[in-house]
């Protein structure tokens, strides 16, 4: 089976997953707004959590998998690992943008400020900018081997930073709250709210894989097209 056939198949499966994810996103919004109880102290603004936290989850998964694919590339020098790392990084930036774009709408009514420079928010922004730099680095390096090596090193740095960002709420005095699910004491949240949050996590995970599969397939198709143009010239 040719590379093109494989790429088209992956692209098609990614599109199906994306459509399922988008339908799930609509379901999540309806469930959050109409079928999940209001938090008494924070009001409706607390429901931003059902998009904000899953997007942070998806961004974290994306960054960690980018790091693992980067390590795999440095170890094996396999072009597939480099493509997977690049696809995951781009999708990670997308979910990072959702996370950073929704957070201020929750912060303003609850904290009284759109943004505070506490350890969690600042370290998250740095990690986000590191990945923006990752994509700029890829775009600005012509040689494929050099591009893959340089970006793999940056991808690995992101992987190292993820645990630090997660632990900032324990290591420093922060405005950002501690996790309500991923913490040693267990879940401290009513069941109906937790169910909606888990729906969000599933939806964003499906979207992550749908987007990454599409992006990977598109990169292969683009590389093949460039090779054809090079051969024809």
């Amino acid at each position, binding site marked *: 089976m040719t590379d093109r056939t494989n790429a*088209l198949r992956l*692209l098609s499966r*990614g*599109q199906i997953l*994306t459509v399922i994810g*988008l339908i799930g*996103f609509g379901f999540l*919004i309806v469930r*959050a*707004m109409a079928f999940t109880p*209001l*938090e*008494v*102290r*924070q*009001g*409706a*603004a607390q*429901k*931003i959590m059902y*998009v*904000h936290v899953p*997007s942070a989850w998806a961004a974290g998964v994306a960054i960690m998998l980018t790091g693992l694919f980067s390590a795999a590339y440095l170890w094996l020098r396999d072009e597939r690992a480099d493509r997977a790392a690049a696809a995951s990084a781009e999708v990670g930036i*997308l979910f990072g*943008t*959702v996370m950073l*774009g*929704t957070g201020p*709408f*929750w912060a*303003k*009514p609850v904290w009284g400020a759109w943004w505070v420079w506490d350890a969690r928010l600042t370290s998250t922004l740095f990690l986000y900018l590191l990945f923006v730099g990752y994509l700029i680095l890829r775009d600005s390096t012509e040689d494929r081997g050099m591009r893959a090596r340089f970006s793999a090193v940056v991808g690995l740095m992101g992987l190292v930073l993820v645990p630090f960002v997660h632990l900032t709420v324990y290591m420093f005095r922060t405005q950002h709250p501690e996790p309500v699910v991923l913490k040693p004491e267990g879940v401290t949240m009513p069941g109906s709210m937790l169910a909606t949050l888990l729906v969000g996590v599933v939806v964003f995970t499906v*979207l992550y894989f749908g*987007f990454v599969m*599409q*992006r990977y*397939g*598109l990169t292969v*198709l*683009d590389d093949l*097209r460039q090779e054809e143009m090079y051969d024809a010239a």
Partner: protein
Amino acid sequence: MPPDNGAYMIAAYIVGGVIVLAYAVYLFVMARKLK
């Protein structure tokens, strides 16, 4: 009585939805070009 701040929730959902949808459309358009 919970505070009345539903507008923030709506705004955040719109921002999140538009970003995700825009990227999905971008990928579909790219796919049509490269297929």
